[in-house]
């Protein structure tokens, strides 16, 4: 029975999906997590506690573990574990992308530099320390532009500014967010300011083997992402862009893979399309986040997690094609800051033709914080239909039927 180390932080949405995938293919799992598992003492051979922020030391612990229980693959479920996964896999002699490539992909500035050096269309950008004078930053920028904290992911802290006043305000807000992230050594205290790229945004899901990207899906993002915040909502596949545009997107993604030097494993890329061409935004050495992978099925029902696991274990995945129907997911946006008191209309939303699942992921009574500061989704809607238009309509209608009662917190943003 093959044995895989699954690196999953305690904030992951996806540990269960990967455990299901491992069971489906008969693989034994060891879960490596950043916090102790509550029942680790009952099954020490199946649970490791690792410091994801210190990959070298954590990789040593993994190598020591593997001496007694050899590992056939090391996988990370999310961004937080990818550098450690590459470090450990390299130390164990397993197929992986170079640590430097994965680290660069995780770092907004390093990735920007590599993409630009490879000749890919790139926005002009400049990096500032968090202590920089916001008014001075505003004087140096051209508009419109986008402010991004280097260390955060998933659109957190990403704010568009159309004039110096907006930029100075956005810079202060992002600096405050980074301060709230705490004095963690791993949190980069730098802020990227780059020119805003207009256009339709798409996401590409791919699987890289030997440096060649195999396209798994192109997702359209039908809701305009024009700022001031960039909250992702709808993902629908297959793309409705013309075939020639999709081919350009696929080619650009392959160039991103090459520019960063990624060699193995899943990638999730985001790109913009406008009359000037296809613009790479970023590429992450992991698969799609949240619960969104449920929008993808391959062959006769194989999940994305199973596909990734099969790939990592060297099993054949070439014959597994994405299902023929259209599918999509809505990451339910948080309408305002406060405490979630009630969710209404779930049954009505589930009755919308094409809707397969309505999943609320924030418990009643918990605080909710929208972007740019927040880090959670209210939940997810999933739909399948013959055509992507129908999927999009179903997701919008289901969302329209949902109601969220949120008690605003005094002084909170709503």
């Amino acid at each position, binding site marked *: 029975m093959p044995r895989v180390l699954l690196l*999953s*932080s*305690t*904030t*992951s*949405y996806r*540990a*269960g999906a990967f*455990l299901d995938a491992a*069971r489906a293919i008969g693989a034994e*799992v060891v*879960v490596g*997590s950043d*916090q102790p*598992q*509550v*029942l*680790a*003492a*009952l*099954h020490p051979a*199946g*649970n490791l506690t690792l410091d994801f922020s210190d990959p070298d030391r954590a990789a040593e612990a993994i190598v020591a573990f593997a001496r007694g229980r050899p590992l056939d693959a090391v996988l990370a479920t*999310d*961004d*937080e574990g990818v550098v450690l996964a590459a470090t450990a896999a390299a130390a164990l002699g397993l197929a992986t992308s170079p640590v430097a490539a994965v680290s660069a992909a995780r770092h907004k500035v390093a990735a920007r530099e590599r993409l630009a050096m490879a000749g890919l269309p790139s926005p002009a950008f400049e990096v500032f320390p968090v202590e920089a004078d916001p008014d001075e930053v505003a004087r140096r920028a051209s508009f419109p532009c986008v402010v991004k904290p280097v260390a*955060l*992911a*998933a*659109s*957190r802290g990403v704010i568009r500014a159309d004039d110096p006043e907006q930029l100075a305000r956005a810079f202060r807000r992002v600096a405050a*967010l980074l301060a*709230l*992230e*705490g004095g963690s050594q791993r949190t980069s205290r730098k802020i990227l300011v780059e020119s805003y790229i207009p256009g339709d945004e798409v996401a590409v899901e791919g699987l890289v083997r030997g440096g060649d990207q195999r396209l798994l899906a192109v997702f359209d993002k039908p809701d305009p992402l024009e700022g001031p915040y960039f909250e992702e909502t709808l993902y629908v596949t297959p793309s409705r862009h013309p075939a020639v545009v999709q081919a350009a997107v696929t080619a650009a993604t392959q160039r991103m893979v090459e520019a960063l030097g990624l060699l193995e494993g899943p990638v999730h890329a985001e790109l913009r399309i406008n009359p000037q061409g296809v613009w790479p935004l970023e590429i992450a050495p992991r698969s799609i*986040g*949240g619960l969104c992978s449920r929008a993808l099925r391959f062959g006769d029902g194989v999940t994305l997690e199973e596909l990734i696991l099969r790939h990592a274990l060297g099993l054949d995945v070439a014959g597994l094609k994405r299902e023929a129907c259209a599918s999509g997911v809505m990451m339910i946006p948080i309408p305002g800051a406060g405490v979630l008191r009630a969710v209404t209309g779930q049954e009505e939303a589930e009755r919308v033709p094409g809707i397969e699942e309505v*999943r*609320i*992921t*924030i*418990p*009643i*009574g*918990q*605080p*909710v*914080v929208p972007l740019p*500061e*927040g*880090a*959670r*989704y209210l939940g997810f809607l999933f739909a399948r239909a013959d055509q992507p238009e129908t999927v999009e309509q179903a997701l919008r209608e289901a969302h329209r039927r949902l109601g969220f009662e949120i008690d605003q917190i005094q002084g909170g943003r709503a």
Partner: protein
Amino acid sequence: MITITEVAREKVLALLASEGRQGLALRFAIDGRGPGGFRYRLGFVEPQDRRDDDTVVDAGGFVVLIDAQSAPHLGGASLDYVETLQESGFKIENPNAVWSDPMAAAVQRILDTEINPAVASHGGHVELLEVKDQVAYIAMGGGCQGCGMADVTLRQGIEVRIREAIPEIRAVVDTTDHAGGTNPYYQPAKGGRSPLG
């Protein structure tokens, strides 16, 4: 079916009088199982809440309703009311074994002695609902309900330990409504940890 002591009957009648409403019934149910045995639920319900398959016991002045799932486990039980310096309240004596199925009883022992003491450190608990066709059906509560690591707790802890101790168990199935959890220990987030939720 069940015995209601005179003291308990008088206490129930007094509570009914204090409610100021006539015709309420007393619903008596098994609410779960834990290390101390059965957990019970007692409460007044409207007459229209009586279900066709309820067992109805005339206690003299009020009726006791026992649901069909609880009834087989309450035969010979008694309901008393005690009031001493040490304790006061309704007291239930039940001669029935918590689980008549030895396999379920063995699973319960693992939960009581190993798993629940550990998950209690995260404010959680795990309840055995039934064992059917060698599959143990459980529900998680407290800090485990809705926890981002609930699947890991199940697969890498609960299931492994139960199957190790009781190899006849083929699988452990989590029936928890995790969306209904109100205080999960670990909560998922996009793009890494955030102090803001």
